[in-house]
């Protein structure tokens, strides 16, 4: 329940501010609280904006996937985002997958199939760190659930890069981002601006737009069950409310001779 969560968060934040006497001077290294962003999947009846999630997948494929794996996902899962079978096959076939051993005992490369997991950019953690100045790009399969603030945080982080304020010394190879813990992040600003990605539906690929889209995609990736979960929840709670009313009426009837 995003509104409840954000209200809780707001209350906690307000309490925290009161405790420090409302002083605005946050410590230089402390991360800012991500602002509450409105997403299509918020609320009791939220669903994933399919067009946005598809654009988000494109951003992931063309930008994020150069460093970030999504080990929990198979290409076949993309059908749930409204991609056709042929599109999914074509996307899977663009990668080479290491398979085998074959009958001769040799490993071989073959084009990807829908049943394959998303191909990881690095073969192992060491390779990933070696290519990224010692930092490990986290797997993005459940990143929205794995970060305090969820989708709001991801969106804030992707759009939160800026030049460091005066007097802040960045460590070698680090970038300033006010939403990241410690405010120094190894990831270079991934979303550069218009022209970086060309959306098929003609949407202008601003940093804000790409960030929203990829966040929607990642939210779906973390909770592919979200839509059926919320639909089931609404029905079950309606059912229980009616059943509860009836049960209470029965209870009153049974107890009427006692009171």
């Amino acid at each position, binding site marked *: 329940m995003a509104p409840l969560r954000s209200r809780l968060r707001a209350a906690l934040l307000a309490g925290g501010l009161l405790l420090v006497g409302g002083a605005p001077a946050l410590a230089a290294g402390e991360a800012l609280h991500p602002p509450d962003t409105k997403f299509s999947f918020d609320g009791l009846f939220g669903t994933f904006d399919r067009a946005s999630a598809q654009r988000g997948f494109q951003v992931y494929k063309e930008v994020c996937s150069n460093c970030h794996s999504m080990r929990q996902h198979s290409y076949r899962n993309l059908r749930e985002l409204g991609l056709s079978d042929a599109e999914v096959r074509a996307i899977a076939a663009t990668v080479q997958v290491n398979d085998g051993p074959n009958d001769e005992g040799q490993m071989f490369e073959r084009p990807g199939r829908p049943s394959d997991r998303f191909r990881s950019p690095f073969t192992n953690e060491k390779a990933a760190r070696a290519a990224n100045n010692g930092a490990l790009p986290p797997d993005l399969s459940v990143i929205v659930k794995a970060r305090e603030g969820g989708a709001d945080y991801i969106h804030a982080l992707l759009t939160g890069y800026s030049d460091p304020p005066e007097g802040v010394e960045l460590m070698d190879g680090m970038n300033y981002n006010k939403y990241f813990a410690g405010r120094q992040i190894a990831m270079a600003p991934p979303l550069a601006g218009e022209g970086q990605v060309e959306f098929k539906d003609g949407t202008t690929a601003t940093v804000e737009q790409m960030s929203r889209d990829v966040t929607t995609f990642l939210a779906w990736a973390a909770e592919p069950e979200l839509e059926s979960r919320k639909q089931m929840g609404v029905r079950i709670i309606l059912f229980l409310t009616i059943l*509860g009313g009836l049960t209470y009426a029965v209870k009153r009837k049974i107890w009427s001779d006692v009171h």
Partner: protein
Amino acid sequence: MAIGLHESEFKNPVIRWVDARLPVFTMMQKEYGTFPTPRNFNYFWNFGGLALVNLVIMIATGIFLAMNYTAHVNFAFDSVERIMRDVNYGWLLRYVHANGASMFFIVIYIHIWRALYYGSYKAPRELLFMLGVVIFLLMMATAFLGYVLPWGQMSFWGATVITNLFSAIPLVGESIVTWLWGGFSVDNPTLNRFYSLHYLLPFVTFGVVFLHIAALHITGSNNPLGIDPKGPQDTLPFHPYYTAKDSVGLIVYFIVFAALVFFAPNLLGHPDNYTPANPLVTPPHIVPEWYFLPFYAILRAVPDKLGGVILMGGSIMILFILPWLDTSPIRSMRFRPLARIALLVWLVSFFVLMYCGAKPPEEPWVLIARLATLYYFAYFLVILPALGAKERGLPLPASISMPVLRGGGPLPAGAMAKPMEKA
């Protein structure tokens, strides 16, 4: 009726045949049909039944989760994600199980609160209460073991912190920790034994629950007035009165449960547990699940490791001697104006500890946690024994039925008007 057969009162020939040889139907009728139950229960008396329902839900969902879970450090996290994505309704099973643990603690905490407030721990129900504390301990162990299984960051580091507590034991501490781990760090052998024990303990719990209920049916239930039923006018048959009343509470419980599972399934969890366990990266704040926070706060309130462990254990163990610490003959806090306030303050100290447990161990939280810990223990060790000797309770009503049935006879001179207004 042949010799050796039970004389059954059931008319249905099949039921009668079984009942004569194994009188389960007679027993159920006696214990859950006609069982004389005080007529003045409030909704606090729902929570024992709710706890039993919760235990059954946990075992049922757990069995199906176990069919799809892999207890190995390399596969545990991924097998849980597979349950979430590829197992039919796996997400539902897992979210019901994970939030079911939280619901279980909510229910049990209210159930324990009911016992503390209405003096359900006092004679003749001391053993009943102690069995309840055993169930609570088993539940805590089971919850802790279960939280380790998804093998996320909090699973791993929580397991490391909690098992390391045993190293505070002088001389043999380190050996005990190695023995618990099955090695020299939390690793695959630890995960395997935790899984085995996590599957075992709920059934042990079930056994103790049976004893808890058996003991309850010997002494009978306490009630909000804390006075004994004096005859049939003070009781009602369990069915249909309390089956109906419990059903109402059960639906409300299901609604709260459903709201968590379907709309905020990760509200009570920690985001770090969606990051696979990494022994080389320590999370900035290691916090246990919310239901352990008060005890975690007590642990950290003591500057000495062994002292902290002793106090944390003592905070629950003290419940075993509570029936003898509270010497007042009055059960219900409704008639103990001073102890009632002391107990309400104790409840506040419990929540304060819960809040402090979630905070980093810095000032002012350490100081606040110390004060709350002090009061937590003072309530049991100082206030209750002192009040037992000194406090003058309010006059008790003559019987349960009198305050309940309006116009049920003359009131003994001002005996009950005041307290019953509150009720």
